[in-house]
């Protein structure tokens, strides 16, 4: 059973309010190593500088959107194994098919609950302690 506090996360979203909400939710689940990025480009630089175990990324972002970030992470060998959860405003089938094609591990539809986010993370990492 992996401990949430040992899993490093980077949250990518262009809205400070949403980043704060996700951070707050992750802290409630037990995560401690949480970084934030304002867009896909900043997130990519962040994981290249210091790899994370999990990326939670919005789809709509300036500079590099969620799909672009996912592709870039999967194409770069040092980061290609990072778990990736996509945040979407709606369950867009085409978007999710595209994300799946590039190796997304799971997705969360906004607005989400803490329990819902935990469930999606546990589907990737197994039950968290």
């Amino acid at each position, binding site marked *: 059973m992996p401990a949430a506090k040992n899993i490093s996360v980077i949250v990518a979203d262009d*809205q400070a*309010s*949403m980043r704060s909400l996700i951070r707050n939710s992750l802290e409630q689940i037990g995560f401690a190593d949480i970084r934030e990025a304002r867009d896909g480009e900043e997130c990519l630089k962040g994981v290249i500088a210091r790899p994370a175990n999990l990326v939670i990324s919005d789809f*709509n972002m*300036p500079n590099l959107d969620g799909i672009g970030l996912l592709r870039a992470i999967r194409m770069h060998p040092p980061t290609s194994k990072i778990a990736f959860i996509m945040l979407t*405003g709606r369950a867009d089938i085409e978007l999710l098919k595209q994300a799946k094609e590039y190796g997304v591990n799971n997705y969360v539809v906004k*607005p*989400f609950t803490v329990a819902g986010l935990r469930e999606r993370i546990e589907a990737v990492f197994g039950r968290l302690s």
Partner: protein
Amino acid sequence: MRGRPKAGLTTENGAAPAGRRVHIVQGAYEVTRDPQVVLTTLLGSCVAACVHDPVAEIGGMNHFLLPDAEGAGDSADVRYGVHSMELLINGILQLGGRRERLRVWLFGGAKLFDRLVDIGAKNAAFAEQFVRREELIPMGGSLGGLKARRIQFWPVAGRPRQLLLKQAEPGLTAPPVLDSRPPRVQPGSAVELF
């Protein structure tokens, strides 16, 4: 507002009839670049954000209520407001708006009923905090008070109008009655009263 918004309409293409009114119900939002469109809503304790990009000449409005506003309050209720604002802002960005140019008027958040918890105040506080945190350009508006409001917003021109109602909004209580007394508007606000 629980669950997903009822409508996320974007009137990007096609000319609308002159002065076409689009009413925004609770949980919905609308974004447009059509100069003929007038967005309208009726607010009690709910809040509406009117957002406008003056360069791209795009604008929109939402209408939301934090669903758990009567509770003790934690991030669980705030997420619906954040989501509503995100949908509105993303809609404008997708039509070519730029975040750093977005001007925002906030309306609503009235206290219509005697309750221990002022739901309207909580909604208003959330909206103001959101505008500050996201570094959007605050243009004023009208928040709080004891009366329902009817709002009109010309999203392409960036022109809001407010009518304070004498009684609570329909659906909450009786049909609206015009109030002849002048409404209180935040200082510096470019809100037109009618």
